[in-house]
């Protein structure tokens, strides 16, 4: 479904090009939940924005459902079925939660229909549906509303940029359930989550690891996760490297 070939992205830093994404190629097939992880500053969020069209690559191509979307706008990509959940949700004065969910769904949903999306992310819908998406909401509330709007998109490919950031532990448990449900129900759809969280990694079909803008590893969860969380071969490798120093 999503095919990225030789994608690079550079920014200007003191007059010189600084590469944030370096020649990345990957495929995300239908019906799969992929998680991209890696150290801070590794290019994960930038890659997500490149997929959504918020940033434009300096090189490479992005194909979605067989179409080259590399130079399509954010709007055009959204219309073709790419949804994007922001790491830092945006506030709007005057726009209500109901308005945002209606815009996301592209339908004039009844309040009850819109409430169902809020319920999925653990918000008591009646309390929120008529509230403005403004500074009166906490960061965690905004985050859950952001995720609800993306669920309302019912997109072919949904990209979540660090969905766990800024939400409390209870909401995080709830969020995992949302992703599990999504994963179990997806057929011709795909989910891509940028995350550091082990619990999110543990529900992935495949895990991609980015470091310093490069794709350093990609594989099935069972294969990649143990190394990432410091078990199995990672521990052996660590012990091997530091043999005699007893740092591990």
């Amino acid at each position, binding site marked *: 479904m999503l095919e990225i070939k030789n994608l690079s992205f550079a920014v200007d830093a003191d007059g010189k090009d600084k590469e944030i994404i370096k020649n990345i190629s990957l495929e995300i097939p239908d019906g799969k939940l992929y998680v991209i992880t890696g150290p801070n500053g590794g290019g994960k969020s930038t890659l997500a924005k490149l997929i*959504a069209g*918020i940033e434009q690559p300096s090189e490479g191509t992005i194909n979605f459902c067989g179409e080259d979307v590399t130079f399509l*706008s*954010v*709007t055009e990509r*959204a*219309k073709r079925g790419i*949804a*994007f959940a*922001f790491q830092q949700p*945006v506030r*709007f*004065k*005057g*726009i*209500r939660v109901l*308005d*945002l969910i209606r*815009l*996301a769904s*592209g339908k004039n949903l009844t309040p009850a229909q819109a409430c169902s999306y809020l319920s999925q992310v653990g918000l008591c819908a009646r309390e929120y549906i008529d509230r*403005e998406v403004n500074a009166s909401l906490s960061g965690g509330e905004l985050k859950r509303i952001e995720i609800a*709007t993306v669920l309302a*998109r019912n997109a072919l490919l949904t990209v979540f940029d660090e969905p766990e950031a800024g939400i409390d532990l209870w909401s995080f448990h709830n969020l995992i359930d949302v992703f599990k449900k999504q994963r179990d129900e997806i057929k011709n759809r795909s989910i891509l989550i940028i995350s550091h969280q082990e619990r999110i990694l543990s529900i992935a079909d495949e895990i991609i690891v980015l470091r310093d803008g490069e794709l350093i590893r990609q594989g099935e969860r069972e294969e990649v996760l143990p190394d990432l969380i410091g078990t199995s071969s990672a521990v052996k490798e660590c012990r091997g490297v530091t043999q005699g120093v007893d740092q591990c």
Partner: protein
Amino acid sequence: MLNLSATEKFLLNEIADINDVPAGAFNIRSNSQSVLRQSSKNVEIVSKEGVSGMDIFIKPGTKGEQVHIPVVISESGIKEKVYNDFFIGDNADILIVAGCGIDNCGAHDSQHDGIHRFYVGKNAKVKYVEKHYGSGKGAGKRILNPVTEVYMEENSAVEMEMVQIKGVDDTKRSTIADLKAGAKLVVRERLMTHEEQQAYSVYTVNLNGKDSSADVVSRGVARDNSYQKLDLKIVGNAPCKGHTECDSIIMDSGRILAVPALEANDVDCSLVHEAAIGKIAGEQITKLMTLGLTEAEAEEQIINGFLR
């Protein structure tokens, strides 16, 4: 059925959501004439003598009634000054819907200056909605200069929704309020200006009584080459609470001047002012684009929400 032209009906709908004869007491003014009037058991509407306008008497204890007094002008060149005084009895609870729509397809300016004075009795509650709208492609301007004076007795409450929807070339809005003990005033102003339009809005709220309070919020959007000046002043003359907020979006070559003023004449006053002017945040547009809206559609949604 209302015996009005299609243009007049359109204007009525824009400013007062009126499609037919409204319920309760009303006066519909069209092209400087009262074309339809009705008093009710508790609301009496009487023409003034000597000047154009009405006295509107709302009996003490009136509950759940509405008064509609919309004005439409569809002839080019009309200039009028109208005095409407509202006498709201003690313990009354009433909705008053005003507003003016001007359609000017001619070469001469059309102007409506509405002077509204509210005498609000003890413990009375008033919700006042006033919408202004202009249309027509004539060279003549659409000018609206509302003056609103509010005199509030003890423990009365007034909520005012003042909206300039679009199409008004020039407006000078003046609002003065005097509050006695325990009185509460809430104002929500929304101003949209575009093309070469100019809007001046001046508020002076005097909190004269103990525990009186005012919350005045003005939101504006200045597009194209338009100009807005917002002048919000609260004077605290007793232990009281006051809050004003000017919140504006500036676009294209629009200009906005916000002039906040707070005056405390009592040590137990608590007065706050907030002001912010800025363009639409890029991230807001991007977010709505990720929902499938074009940039222009996103901008429209953001403005419509802001001025809701």
